[in-house]
Structures are given as C-alpha cells and as structure tokens.
C-alpha cells in the first residue's frame, strides 16, 4: 500500500498567559491508502490538535504549528498557500467533528449545506448538486431524503446530524476522512450505525480514515493501525491486533486493563493512579513516569524515544530500550 499522508516531526504549540503548551510534540506517523488509523488517548493528549493541525485549523486561538511537515499525496500541506489548502479541504481532505450541531449553520437548510461543497469543488450546477445531495442523504441511511434536504439542523436529532456531516464529508470523494470523536456524543445504538456506515464507505470508496477517539472499543472495531498518545507524544503504535494482544507501553497496558468489558467482570478494576501531568510543567522525562508502576531512575530524567520493537510495533519506553541494549 502506498502512503497517502506522511507526518514528520509535527509540533503544535499553544501560547497562553501562563506559558507555552506543547500540545503536539514531535509526532510522526503515516496513513496508507485505504487504511484506518486510530489515534487514541485521553483529553489533553494532543490527539485532536493533531487533526486540527492537518486541517490547518490551529492558527486562530494562540496556536501555531512550530515545526514538522505534513505530506499529503506528495505535497506538504504546511507549505501550501491558503487558497490551495482551502480547495483541498472538503474535497480530498474531509473532516467530521464530535458536535455535528455546532459544525452546521443553523439558518441554512440541510440540502443547501450539502450542495455547497459540491458546487464549489465539483463545479456542479444547482440542479445536479441537489440531485447529488439527495442521493447522499439516502446513502447515509436517512429515509425521506427530499424532506430532510429542506429541513433545518435543529429539526434533526444528533445521530441524523452526524450522518449529514458524513454525507457532506464524503460528498466530493475525499482521499482521507479525519473523524474527531465522531460518535462520542451519540448513543451506543446510534454509534453502531455510524461506525457500520463509515466502514461501508471505506470499503466502497477505498478512502483512508484517521479516526480520533478515546474509546478503545471503537478502536478495536475500526482500526487497522493504532497510535497511542500521551501528553502530546506518541507512546506506542502498531497494528491493531498486535497492539491489543501484546501492548508494550505501561500506559497502553493500563488503559486496556482499566476499561470494564462486558462479560469479563472482575471484582476490582485496574486503575492507573494519579492524573495527566500539567502541560506547563513538563521536564525532560518520560511524561508517564509518576503514574507508572515500572518507573526507573532514568524515566525521571530522560525522555525515551520511539523505537521499533518488532512485529511492526513501536514504543517509547525505557523498559524496552534496556531490553534492546542487553539483547
């Protein structure tokens, strides 16, 4: 499979009253054609900021991509001028967000909002665009598409709106769909529908998906390749089956163990002690060290690097560096 997108050394920082926050710190990964990559992590780990950086949406509130490159189909998105980037967004590069309600304009009819990218990017005329919009609405599993096209966002439920967002996102046949917590605000039965649909579209069109989520269950269902982030850094990545059956980083292990799983009840749930470190007070160290049960002196003073540990898995942890040295 060919690389569709290759991110190299991406850093995105936010400048706040209290100091500089390295929301994304030297992150590199790639998305291959037709692949679903999941970035998983807890709030504040930088997973959403990574997505926003790719879309060029971090500039406004004191944020800045400070270094790195985002190569998409051989072009560095960070070097593109605004106009070219805009023509790519919504066309080859589409995104859906957690809150569909706030991503849609409340005073414009659903149909018109779906037609807009079709007219801009695919240069369809009004009639063609409307026909295509209605087709798209029925494609995302909504009955009575004509009626829905003429309604306003507030008349639809959250699940329906997320479907509309997906319709807009896939309307111009994107190569890459970035989905930032697309089902977090939805009920499980609706989530199941949406995930099924995303999988279906991916199979049909061969697009790649970059899925951002905190839910390991969703990851297991959707991902081909998984990236685990913590405090702005990638701590572990690998093929989904490998990563879930043989997690290497203590954080990944902890996460997997601390999620209760249906029909696998234990008397006491494993829990990672403590909480995420303050992003303003990060010293050169493994950022997970104060919550880690395997913490060694070196973890407190030096930052581990992401290393290949075989089976296509990479991990950033001193435990494995030691192992590598001794081997």
């Amino acid at each position: 499979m060919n690389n569709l997108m290759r991110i190299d050394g991406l850093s995105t920082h936010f400048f706040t009253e209290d100091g500089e926050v390295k929301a994304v710190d030297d992150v590199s990964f790639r998305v291959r054609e037709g692949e679903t990559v999941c970035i998983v992590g807890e709030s504040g780990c930088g997973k959403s900021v990574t997505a926003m950086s790719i879309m060029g949406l971090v500039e406004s509130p004191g944020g800045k991509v400070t270094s790195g490159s985002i190569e998409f189909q051989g072009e560095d998105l960070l070097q593109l001028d605004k106009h070219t980037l805009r023509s790519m967004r919504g066309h080859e590069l589409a995104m859906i967000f957690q809150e569909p309600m706030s991503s849609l304009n409340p005073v414009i009819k659903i149909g018109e909002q779906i037609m807009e990218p079709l007219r801009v990017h695919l240069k369809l005329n009004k009639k063609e665009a409307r026909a295509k919009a209605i087709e798209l609405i029925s494609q995302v599993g909504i009955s009575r598409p004509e009626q829905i096209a003429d309604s306003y966002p507030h008349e639809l439920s959250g699940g329906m709106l997320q479907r509309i967002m997906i319709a807009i996102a896939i309307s111009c046949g994107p190569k890459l769909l970035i989905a930032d917590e697309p089902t977090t605000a939805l009920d499980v039965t609706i989530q199941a529908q949406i995930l099924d649909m995303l999988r279906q579209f991916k199979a049909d069109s061969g697009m790649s998906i970059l899925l951002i989520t905190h839910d390991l269950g969703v990851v297991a269902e959707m991902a081909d390749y998984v990236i685990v982030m913590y405090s702005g850094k990638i701590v572990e990545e690998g093929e989904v089956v490998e990563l879930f059956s043989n997690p290497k980083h203590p954080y990944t292990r902890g996460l997997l163990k601390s999620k209760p799983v249906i029909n696998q009840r234990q008397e006491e749930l494993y829990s990672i002690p403590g909480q995420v470190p303050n992003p303003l007070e990060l010293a050169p160290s493994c950022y997970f060290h104060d919550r880690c049960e395997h913490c060694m002196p070196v973890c407190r003073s030096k930052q581990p690097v992401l290393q290949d540990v075989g089976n296509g898995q990479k991990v950033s942890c001193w435990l494995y560096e030691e192992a590598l040295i001794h081997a």
Partner: protein
Amino acid sequence: MAVNSSLAPVRRAGAASGRSSLFRQSVRRLLHNKLAMSGFVVVLFMFALCFVGPLFSPYTDNKINMAMMNKAPGLKHWLGTDALGRDILTRVMQAGRISLTVGLASMVLSVFIGALLGAVAGYYRGVADQIIMRVADLLLTIPGLPLLFIFGALLSEWKIPTDYRMYIVMLMLSIVNWPGMARMVRGQMLSLREREFMQAAVVLGLRDRRKLFNHLLPNIIPLLIVMATLNIGGAILSESVLSFFGLGVMPPTPTWGNMIDAANNMIDFQQRPWLWIPPGLSIFATVIAINIFGDGLRDVLDPKQKR
C-alpha cells in the same frame, strides 16, 4: 472544543499553590491588563484633580470679577476665565466634584434598587417577578432622555431650590437606570438557578439563606461590579446632557454639562474655545476611561472565563 480541552490543565495550573483567593487572582489579572489599568489611572487622576485640586486654587470663592471677563488662558488663569471673570480651571475642578458625585451616587442608588428588585424577581419568581418586571419593562419602553427632560422641566416648573436639584437629579437618573440593572440581575439569577450546583444545594438540603448568600450572590457580584462601573459613565453623560440643556443642576453650581452650555453661543463657540473645551474634554476623558476600565473588569470577572 479540542483546543479548550487541551488547555484546561493550564488554567488549573494558573493558580498558585496554597490558599488562594479569587479576589486576589482577579486583581492580579487586572493589573496585567494595561488598557484597563490606564483607564483606571485616568479615572483616579480625574477624581484627585476634582477633589484635591481646588484646595490649591486661589480662585475657589467664585467671585465675579468684571475686570477679568473672558480672558484667554495665561499665566494667571491657566485655562482662562469665563464671562463673569471666574477661573475656568477651578470651575472645571469644582464642576467635576458635582458631576462625579452625581455619577457615583446615582450609580449606587440604581445598582441598589436594580439589584434588589432583580434578585427578588429572579429568586422568588411568580407574582413578585411579574409586577417588578412589568414596571421595569414600562420604564424601559419610555426613551430615557425625553423622560429626564420632562422631569427636569417639572423641576423648573415647581421652582425647586438649586441646592436641592443636585440630589433630585441623582434620583432621576437612578429611576431611569434601575430597570436595566434589574433585568440583568434577574436574568443572571434565573440562569444560576438552573445550574447544577444550585440543584446540588437543594439535594444537600441547604437553607434558603445559605443558597442566596453563599451561592447566588457571590456569582452575581462580579457582574454587578462591571455593570456599576459602566453605569457611572452613563450617569455622568446623562447628567451633562441634562445640565447642558439647563434641566439638570443649575448655575451657579457648576457641572461639566452646564459649563459646556457656553458653546451654545456662536461667538463663544468660535472665539473662546477655552470656555467649553476643558469641561468637554473632562467628560470625554472620564467617560472613556471608565468604560475602558469597565471592559477590562468584565474580562477579568466574567464568570464564563473560569468555569
């Protein structure tokens, strides 16, 4: 969104360790806001000028001096003299006392009436709410200035002694201003009632007194401070307008408004700008400074900034 959540721990970290105080934090943030502080400095300067300045002036007796009529600014009279030979600088300072006092006092009064009625309406709702808010709506439907003009004309009609007029003007301004205040407080009260921590207070079985004084009021006071500050500027302006038209505080008591009255006269306006520019500038500077400071306060105290 994503950006907010990633910055949440930062805000958490903003506070120093140990016993912190929201008030001290607010003051610290206010001190960092340069624009607001410059507004505050100007306001302070105006207050100092008006209340302390006249003590150093040799012309405080306001004696009519026909020999010194309409003199241009010079060494003896820094800002010149008016048609009756009185020192403009001294009169601007004395007028400032009145204008600032009227602004402050009417603000205190309208905040008091507005906050009290708004809180009662928002907390108890029902009939009290209906009555208070309908009266407020009624007052809000009448344009403020014409209403003040009518009041002012009535005062002149009833031949109220000029010494008392200052107090009545304060009262008038408060009557016009409280409904806006009451609405604001009531709205805040209603939205606070729906917040989960107020429901928590019900579940905890807290007494009404505690709910009101420990939970609702502390969340309303910041808004009140901001509103009150901005209100002073408005009150000073209204008083100036009234006095300018001769319906507010009457000469010989000077206010900035009735001093600008000099600009009414074409000759004075064109040839003796020292008569009206100093009071005009004083109003301008004071009101702008108060508003800038108020906006800064809003930035610091707005509860939406801190959850």
